[in-house]
């Protein structure tokens, strides 16, 4: 059974439409949710967590639709949207004390471990924490009630490289323990390090739902001089854009033989050139 099934998720705003997003999350997998700002990642996550009411579509957590079971399902979900931005002048101790009472599976040892691992002082208030520390506190709350699914919106934003690395270790440990993680990020290096699968959203539409490595390996990056190409080679280019020495682009892996400069693409390469290609649509 999938941890999460989303079918035809749609939300219409005056200036933006999340259009027919469908995907599933398998147990124990880490899925990266990528797309440029405004692509619909946060809207999707907020639809999943009940903050935003979708106009259409079906959502099922652990095989169950959330209607009438919100409380039961949320016991098994941890949601982090950036850093803690609530009750900025209450001590963390007070916020945690109230929060833990709601969770039947609250794990005090896990919480204490998060406090130690993230160097959090419970006597501070969110207003006294840096942006990165507020993210860590939000994560500490989400990781302390034995959630089976973690929905994380930009969890590594604002974290220093060491903390990010530490957090990715936590994700890998959780994944190895059977937990499922969906996290949106702009830091593709984080996904390279830990993601199994990738969801790529562009202008409200899901363009890719695939294993990360297979998706990236489906493309090659090419660097081209500013000179005419053979028509077949020109037609194979995806997201051609100016570079210092000429042009760069993606090409499908099966067409890489047409280019002497074809090299393995990074996730950044794939995302940037696909976005460039999308601008021409």
């Amino acid at each position: 059974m999938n941890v999460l099934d989303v079918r035809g998720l749609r939300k219409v705003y005056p200036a933006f439409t999340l259009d027919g997003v469908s995907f599933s999350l398998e147990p124990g997998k880490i899925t990266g949710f990528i797309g440029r700002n405004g692509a619909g990642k946060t809207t999707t996550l907020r639809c999943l967590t009940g903050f935003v009411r979708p106009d259409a579509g079906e959502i099922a957590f652990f095989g169950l639709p959330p209607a009438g079971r919100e409380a039961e399902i949320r016991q098994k979900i941890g949601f982090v949207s950036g850093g803690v931005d609530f009750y900025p002048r209450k001590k963390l101790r007070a916020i945690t004390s109230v929060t833990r009472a709601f969770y039947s599976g609250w794990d005090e040892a896990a919480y204490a471990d998060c406090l130690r691992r993230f160097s959090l002082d419970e006597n501070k208030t969110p207003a006294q924490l840096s942006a990165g520390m507020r993210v860590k506190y939000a994560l500490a709350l989400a990781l302390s009630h034995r959630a089976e699914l973690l929905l994380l919106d930009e969890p590594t934003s604002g974290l220093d490289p060491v903390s990010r690395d530490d957090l990715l270790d936590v994700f890998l440990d959780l994944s190895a323990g059977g937990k499922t993680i969906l996290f949106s990020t702009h830091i593709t290096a984080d996904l390279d390090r830990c993601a199994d699968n990738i969801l790529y959203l562009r202008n409200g539409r899901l363009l890719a739902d695939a294993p990360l490595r297979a998706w990236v390996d489906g493309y090659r990056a090419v660097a081209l001089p500013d000179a005419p190409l053979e028509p077949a080679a020109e037609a194979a280019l995806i997201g051609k854009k100016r570079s210092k020495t000429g042009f760069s682009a993606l090409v499908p892996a099966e067409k890489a033989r047409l280019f002497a400069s074809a090299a393995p693409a990074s996730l950044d390469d794939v995302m940037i050139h696909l976005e460039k290609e999308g601008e021409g649509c």
Partner: protein
Amino acid sequence: MLKNLLRKELCLAMHPTGALMLALSAMVLIPNYPYTVIFFYSTLSLFFTCLQGRENNDVSYTLTLPVARRDAVRGRFALAALIELAQLALTGAFCLVRRSLPLPANAAGLEANLSLLGAGFLLFGVFNLVFFPRYYRNIEKVGAPFALASVVFFVLVAAGEALEHAVPFVRDRLDSLDPAYLPARLAALAAGLVLWLLLTALAYRRSVKFFSRLDIA
């Protein structure tokens, strides 16, 4: 669940005036004062709580907890009911204290008696019905619902004052400390309580309906 929701309201969400305004129940010891105004102060503290909640992202926090949307509304109504009942209980206690003091009858409005408590129930019920459903239509707009609820509140207070002068039953029996008319004042208290229950239940249902449709930014 309700216990946890109420604890969250008291420990995190409630504005400090929620407790402070209760002390204003002692205003029934002022010899001449429109005592129904006392109840306005608690509605003000509920407004401050909702306003502060907006600034503190209280709803966003609540929706990350394992609760249904209606539970977020339920917690806030539980807090409102607690504050309103506490204010009425304290006002009742100070009414008794007032009886033991050598104070003249109140010349500025309803006497400090059971009718006053019945009027308090009615005013709180109407406040709940006017304020909360509008607040839960758009939790970013707290001021407009409170402005409307305040206008309705004071129109009712003024109407009550007018009734005291225009209707002999109100003037002679409800606005009195005469033991002979105690049944009438008890009936006023019971009617106020029933109306408070009905109006608050209706306010809750409408608030849940509106809040369930709301997108939280």
